[in-house]
């Protein structure tokens, strides 16, 4: 019992920022209901879902050093699992989730097995190719709406009545908490440490008698499953699914979120997701304030911001935070 308590404490300490952010999401609905801003709950759900997917991708990208440019495919597979189940009248949300997890594990296994034979730029491109393949597959499925996508019925999470507005919010939050716990445990485990060792020096790990491929595969499949879970919940939330969810720019978006927050950290992806969507919400308003005609052209600011982040902000927002706190501790001396 004592051991378990210690372990939990260690987990909390390993990524305090993550739990602070999650606590923030927990109390947000209280604020939005008092301030009468239900619209913000929707934005928060979007942030949590894409934050969750980014956390999944980060296991591969940040901790494993595998630059996958096709993780949107797994969000799409998860979303379509829920959507297609719904189309055939199976609206049990738990079964939809389970299906999404299984299908994503299987497809993650196949795609990972084929892609991980390559490395470097070839790996980036082959993951992109698989994502494009699946994107066009869903575009071609006229039965499920093709290009336009299809509306789905509300998923039925037995025992949790989604007609109550906030139920889905807390369901998504639960999924986020579970993802956070799984990832913190994984990253601290033997498996996670080996994965990070493979990132910095694969041949040494191999010389120790371990097989890097197996570790990479495992990480890839787990991250695919996390993205799939986010995708299935995405369908429940939007009550709509279209190939748009797995467009290649979405894979780029996930990478942006991770790098913005802090690559290879537990807190980074969620922090990045929050900042990304706040930027997306507020940049148009700020521009509208300065130059009303160009409010919808906010990308013209966002593009250069992105370049600046890559060029100047090593370690993302978290890196900047820790540099600032180091600066404060040293009393302003560098």
């Amino acid at each position, binding site marked *: 019992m004592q051991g378990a308590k210690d372990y939990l404490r260690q987990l909390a300490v390993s990524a305090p920022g993550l739990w602070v952010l999650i606590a923030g999401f927990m109390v947000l609905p209280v604020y939005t209901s008092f301030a009468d801003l239900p619209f913000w709950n929707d934005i928060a759900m979007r942030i949590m879902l894409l934050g969750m997917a980014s956390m999944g991708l980060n296991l591969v990208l940040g901790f494993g050093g595998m630059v996958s440019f096709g993780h949107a495919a797994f969000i799409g597979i998860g979303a379509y699992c829920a959507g297609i189940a719904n189309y055939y009248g199976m609206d049990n949300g738990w079964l939809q989730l389970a299906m999404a997890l299984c299908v994503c594990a299987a497809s993650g296994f196949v795609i990972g097995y084929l892609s991980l*034979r390559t490395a470097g*730029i*070839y790996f980036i491109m*082959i993951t992109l190719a698989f994502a494009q*393949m699946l994107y066009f*597959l869903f575009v071609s499925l006229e039965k499920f709406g093709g290009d336009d996508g299809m509306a789905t019925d509300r998923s039925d999470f037995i025992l949790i009545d989604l007609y109550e507005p906030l139920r889905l919010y807390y369901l998504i939050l639960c999924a986020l908490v579970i993802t956070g716990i799984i990832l913190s445990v994984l990253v601290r485990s033997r498996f996670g440490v080996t994965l990070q060792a493979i990132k910095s020096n694969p041949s040494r790990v191999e010389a120790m008698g371990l097989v890097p491929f197996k570790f990479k595969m495992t990480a890839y499949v787990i991250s695919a499953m996390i993205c799939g879970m986010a995708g299935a919940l995405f369908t429940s939330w939007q009550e709509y699914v279209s190939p748009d969810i797995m467009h290649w720019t979405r894979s780029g978006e996930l990478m942006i979120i991770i790098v913005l927050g802090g690559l290879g950290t537990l807190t980074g992806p969620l922090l990045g997701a929050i900042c990304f969507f706040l930027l997306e919400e507020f940049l148009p308003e700020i521009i509208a304030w300065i130059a009303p005609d160009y409010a919808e052209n906010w990308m013209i600011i966002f593009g250069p911001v992105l370049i600046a982040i890559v060029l100047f902000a090593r370690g993302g927002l978290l890196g900047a935070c820790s540099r600032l706190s180091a600066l404060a501790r040293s009393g302003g001396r560098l």
Partner: protein
Amino acid sequence: MAATLLLEQAFNGLQAGVTLFLIAAGLTLVLGIMDFVNLAHGVQVMIGAYAATFLAALTGNFFLGIALAIPFTFASGYLLEWLIIRHLYRRDHMEQVLATFGLILFFNELIRIGFGPASLFSNLPPSLSGFVEIVPGSPYPVFRVVIIGVGFLCALAIHLLVAHTKIGAMVRAGASNPDMTAALGVNIKMLFRLLFATGATCAGLAGMMLGPLTSVEPGMGEPLLILSLVVIIIGGIGSVRGAFIAAVMIGIVDTMGRVLLPVLLRGFMDQAAADGAGPALASMLVYILMAVILVVKPTGLFPPKG
């Protein structure tokens, strides 16, 4: 009838292929030599297409428009390299992907502000809008023949430039050992900048020629960019010869797939569904081809030696 249709589609595929090659040539050299992943290469296609359409409308002459647009795209590539790209060579691939993704967002929005979100259309001059009979009895657009011709000429020029000139030798030397080449007195940074601008011009030229065939719109470069990434991966990064073969292969597979797949699908589903699913499945073909090739040969078909 069926045979001439197939032949015509083969020509269309060839035309798509050489256009892809023009885009991929710059991409493969930049990636192979500077180890730089440039997602913003598609932007050059768009800049070329807009420049040519705009300048042609301004001067009232299609050829003059293209003649003016070529130095313009060269200058834009030169400037872009100087402003942004050169700071990214030493970064890792993911950072390059993200920064150039930012460039895409910026330029697409810039074009949207400048020219509006709607597509521009341009008309071909009468001298290019006719038909020729390559095969007796089936007229084929002159313009597409011109594109094929220009594409082949450019491919030849690039091959000669890289393989048989002093500049090409310097580029190849710079690729295998930049420090040593610089120590021998070659201004390697300027060389890379000119190479980048030349690649941008080739991509721009592809955009100029595609302009009258497709719609000129913001974001038009990205689908082409992804296809040309497929091309250079299949061809082997850094190999101009590989890029050419892969581009023609992809062009023909894609075009023929779009024509043949719906016909094949009609065999076991109703016509409307087949016509809907065919083109999308044909789009998958290209990526399936790439995945198969990478699984069998993880560094592409013609990886450059050394």
